[in-house]
């Protein structure tokens, strides 16, 4: 959970006009220092330098370090492999961006299906629940293998043979099951009085969902949605098992040729570098929404 907040916890304080927005969630680790004053800051700096300095010193002077350095942190191989990996990383970006779009749509449909009340909708609820149970249970890599190798072998007319197509389908199937549960938690967190008040205005169930429940639910679950998006992003590397040359497969190839693991480290860094801005972006979105709701308009 980003910033340690549960969904629904960032409800606005009514009438909190003079309260500053509490959107500064990225710096939670450093926040306690504000209360400590100059002495506290000094202690924090000294203890941090000492502890991290000791760790770095211990690693660099250990007997195994030269070997590790060569196997994992070879600068020449690093720069050489980084450009090749980046060249293929575009394929991962394509996979997870396309998959995410479908995940967000399919998962919302599933969540709404499962949130429908009334006996008529029982089959839809069962269907949605069964789907979630199934695709959350099976390991992602198995679904990719089953579809990636299995589906093209059926040779049905009109069904694509491309492994990348089936890899994306597999990721969409698995991740929409997770994301549906996130949406559903968000939908259930909306107080029934919100529904009552929309229905009291004469809005149908569908319009109540569309205008009142879902918009609030999605806002609440943005941080956990990002969690699953990052998961999906990382799992785009699983497509390598189909023999498709995306970034991980590329790193594997270089690694095997050079007898060196530095390409893997390079790829890990790529993932870290793209994930951090995403986390900050969602923090910013959440903070902006909160700010707008609490302090918007001309006072």
């Amino acid at each position: 959970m980003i910033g340690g907040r549960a969904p629904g916890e960032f409800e606005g304080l009514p009438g909190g006009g003079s309260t500053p927005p509490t959107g500064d969630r990225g710096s939670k680790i450093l926040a306690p220092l504000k209360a400590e004053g100059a002495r506290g800051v000094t202690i924090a700096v000294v203890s941090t330098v000492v502890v991290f300095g000791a760790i770095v010193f211990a690693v660099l002077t250990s007997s195994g370090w030269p070997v590790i350095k060569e196997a994992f942190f070879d600068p020449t191989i690093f720069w050489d492999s980084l450009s090749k990996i980046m060249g293929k990383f575009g394929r991962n970006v394509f996979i997870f961006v396309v998959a995410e779009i479908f995940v967000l749509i399919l998962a919302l449909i599933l969540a709404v299906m499962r949130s429908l009340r009334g006996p008529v909708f029982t089959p839809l609820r069962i269907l949605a629940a069964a789907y979630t149970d199934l695709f959350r249970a099976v390991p992602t890599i198995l679904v990719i293998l089953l579809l990636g190798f299995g589906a093209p072998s059926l040779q049905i007319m009109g069904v694509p043979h491309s492994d990348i197509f089936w890899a994306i389908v597999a990721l969409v199937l698995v991740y929409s099951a997770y994301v549906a549960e996130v949406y559903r938690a968000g939908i259930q967190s909306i107080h029934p009085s919100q529904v009552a008040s929309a229905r009291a205005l004469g809005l149908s169930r569908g319009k109540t969902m569309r205008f009142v429940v879902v918009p609030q639910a999605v806002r609440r679950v943005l941080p956990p949605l990002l969690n699953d998006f990052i998961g999906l992003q990382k799992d785009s590397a699983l497509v390598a098992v189909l023999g498709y040359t995306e970034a991980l497969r590329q790193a594997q190839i270089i690694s095997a040729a050079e007898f060196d693991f530095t390409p893997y480290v390079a790829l890990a860094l790529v993932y870290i570098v793209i994930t951090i801005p995403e986390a900050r972006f969602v923090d910013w979105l959440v903070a902006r929404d909160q700010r707008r709701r609490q302090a918007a308009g001309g006072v």
Partner: protein
Amino acid sequence: MAETAALAIEGLHKSFDELEVLKGIDLEVREHEVVCVIGASGSGKSTLLRCINLLEPVNAGRVLIEGEEITARGVDVNRIRQRVGIVFQAFNLFPHMTVLRNVTLGPIEALGWSKADAEALATQLLERFGLADKRDDYPDRLSGGQQQRVAIVRALAMKPDVMLLDEVTSALDPELVAEVLNVIRELAAGGMTMVIATHEMGFARDIAHRVCFLDEGVILEEGAPEQIFSSPREERTQRFLQSIIDAGRM
């Protein structure tokens, strides 16, 4: 009664599982009439109001709005609710929408008005109730009194035949009660038909044409406010009013 009642309730029963909350309510409200429902907490005031616009399904009995039975099978509940406005104790504004959007959502999405028409009416209503400068604010930014006034405007924007007010001042700080009560007074003066569940006895005495004392799921006593508040016939009514006086609230 010669003319059709704006609202008629006949033999209304409502249970939650084993608990029978309403045990046969009969009530008629004429057009332009203001009826206050008083009674202890848990006497069924809120349930009664929620049954009138079908937010709670009823177990037995009938509810008629201007002669049309809304508890009949196959009635379009959405259309009924458009004619019956309700304002809740806890405001229940939509926190992710501006004041203006809160007020125009119903007219646009339920009544099918154009955005321009809905906004024109909303702006006019917000102005009338001193909320014009709040139209672009989000509800969390407003005081409780302002939020409740917006909730009333939101219900009014649907141009309802009947307004139901469910203890609309109970969640407010004392200093904010008056601004909301004044809005309701203005509605009454404008001839709005209203059923008001309230704990504000002074207000009920001022505004009501008729007061109903709800006790253990039945209307135990009803009459003109002067009669109910000065010389209640039923012993339980007397006791209830005495407890209010003892609490210093009348």
